[in-house]
Structures are given as structure tokens and as C-alpha cells.
């Protein structure tokens, strides 16, 4: 949405995020569509308001970067002082989460193994895995081939059986015909 327009002022918070917040804040309330759109725009306006105020405070303090202190003072002067406690709590929470993540990744680094060594060990592991993989693949291929052969063998056997039966039937009917032709007087009750 933001990428298509070159105009910075078209930036808004995604509608879905706002809808979710409204639903959580006012459960079971029907909110008109144009009201939702309005809340989205109010968000942008609020962010501009706080940024401008914080920026002014920042300029007065002769610092170049807007600091958390500047934002807190801005909220106070704009009449949103009641937000400050909760906002500070969340900041603490975010910081401690980020700190845990950094500790977890640095623990890996602190094993004392430099990256080059880790890469070398990785290559060694791959080298070991490769023949195993080849053997496994070969085994699978062999097994498949064996199954195929077994099937073929079975088919051949069946065909041979059928051929034998047909030959047998042909032979017996031929002999029956012969017998019937040579001895008309005999009453043969021979089962054919």
C-alpha cells in the first residue's frame, strides 16, 4: 500500500491491525466501516502530533536524536500523561526480551570457537554424511530393482502356468477326439 504511492502522507497503520485492536477493546460492538477508516487516520495524526512535539523538545535540548525522554515529555505536554506509566512498562518488557535474545546468541559465540573453525567442522560433517547418503540411496535402488524382478518373475510363472494349462487342454481334447474317432462302438464314459 505504501509502496505504490510516492506521497509520504498516505502512510497509515495497516487496517487489519486497527480492526483487531478495536475488536479487542470493544468486543461485541458493531463499528461502522467509515468509523474504522477514521480511526486509522486518527492513528497517523496522533503519531505526527507526538513526533512533532517530541522533535521540538529534542531541538531545544540540542540533541540530534529523539530520545525516550523527549517522547515522554511530549506525551505529558499534549495531555496524555496518563499513558506514561504503562508505556514505560512496555518499554522495559521489550528491552528485557531483546536482552534475552542477545544473551542466547552470544552464548554460542562464547564457546570460544571462531567462525572459520566452525565452518571447517561443518564441511567435515557434510563429508561424512555424503557417503552415507549415497549408500542409503543405493540400497533403495537395489530394493526397488529386486521388487521389480520379483514381480516379473511372478508374471512369467503365471504365464507359464497358463501356457501349460492350455497345452494340457489342447492335448487332452485332441486325444479325446482321436479316441472318439477310432472306436465308435465303445461306450466310453471316460472323463476327459
Amino acid at each position, binding site marked *: 500500500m*505504501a509502496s505504490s504511492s510516492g506521497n*509520504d*502522507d498516505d*502512510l*497509515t*497503520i*495497516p487496517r487489519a*491491525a*486497527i480492526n*483487531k*485492536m478495536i475488536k*479487542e*477493546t*470493544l468486543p*461485541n*460492538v*458493531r*463499528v*461502522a466501516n*467509515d*468509523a474504522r477508516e*477514521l*480511526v486509522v*487516520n*486518527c*492513528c*497517523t*495524526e*496522533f*503519531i*505526527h*502530533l*507526538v*513526533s*512533532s512535539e*517530541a*522533535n521540538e523538545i529534542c*531541538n531545544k535540548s540540542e540533541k*540530534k*536524536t*529523539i*530520545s*525516550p525522554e*523527549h*517522547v*515522554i515529555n511530549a*506525551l505529558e505536554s*499534549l*495531555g*496524555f500523561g496518563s*499513558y506514561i506509566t*504503562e*508505556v*514505560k*512498562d*512496555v*518499554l522495559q*518488557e*521489550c*528491552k528485557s526480551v531483546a536482552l534475552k535474545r542477545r544473551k542466547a546468541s552470544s552464548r554460542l559465540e562464547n564457546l570460544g570457537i571462531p567462525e572459520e573453525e566452525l565452518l571447517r567442522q561443518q564441511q567435515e560433517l557434510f563429508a561424512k554424511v555424503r557417503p552415507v547418503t549415497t549408500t542409503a540411496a543405493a540400497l533403495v535402488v537395489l530394493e526397488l530393482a529386486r521388487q521389480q524382478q520379483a514381480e516379473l518373475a511372478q508374471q512369467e510363472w503365471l504365464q507359464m502356468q497358463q501356457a501349460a494349462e492350455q497345452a494340457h487342454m489342447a492335448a487332452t481334447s485332441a486325444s479325446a477326439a482321436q479316441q472318439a474317432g477310432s472306436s465308435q462302438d465303445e461306450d466310453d464314459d471316460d472323463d476327459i
Partner: protein
Amino acid sequence: MSTHTAADKDSAASANNKTISLPISRVRLIMKSSPDVSSINQDALFLTTKATELFVQFLAVSSFNNGSGKESNSLSYSDLASAAEETDTFHFLTDILPKKILAGDYLKTLEQMQDEEADN
């Protein structure tokens, strides 16, 4: 009664709100589009994002409580517009929250203005 309910709401709210729901990168973009804003500390960004969330909740709740849709459990555009006019901290919203008027009324006003100019 009200204090008990408020306490319940607070505990529910703080259970939900220990994290941030809005996208921080988008908030940073919007902040930077403000005139003269150069660089923003990451922590300052967190604070602003969370404050914006609280603002949305506050706006929704105030508008609903003071609005006409409370009985029917609904929130309309006019509820928000009224809240902007009546609450001091929401005055900054009046520019983007004009009360809607019927097109017919607007046209009449236009006509009146044109007549006045013609008279002069």
C-alpha cells in the same frame, strides 16, 4: 461498582498489553514523514508505538461511552466526530474529522454564499 469494574479492566488490559500489536516499522515511517524529524532512538519508537495503541483504545472507548450507539451496541462515524469536539485532548483531530453534512445542505450553503457575492 465502578472502581471494581475499573480494576478488573486494568488487570485484563495489562495482561494483554505487555507487548506491542502495531507494526513498529510503519510507525517509524510515519514519524519520519513528519517535517524536520531526523533520527529516532529505538526505545523512543517503542514508546510512541505503545502510546498510539493506548490512544486507539482510549478513542474507541470514549467515543463509545459518550456516543449515541451505546444502547444498540454500535459505534458510528458521528460518535467519533462528537468525541473529537468535546474532549480537549482530541482537539487535534478536528481537522481530519469534519462532521458530515448532507450534500443537499452543502449545496444550499454554496448557493447562499454565491448570492451574497452577487449582491456585493
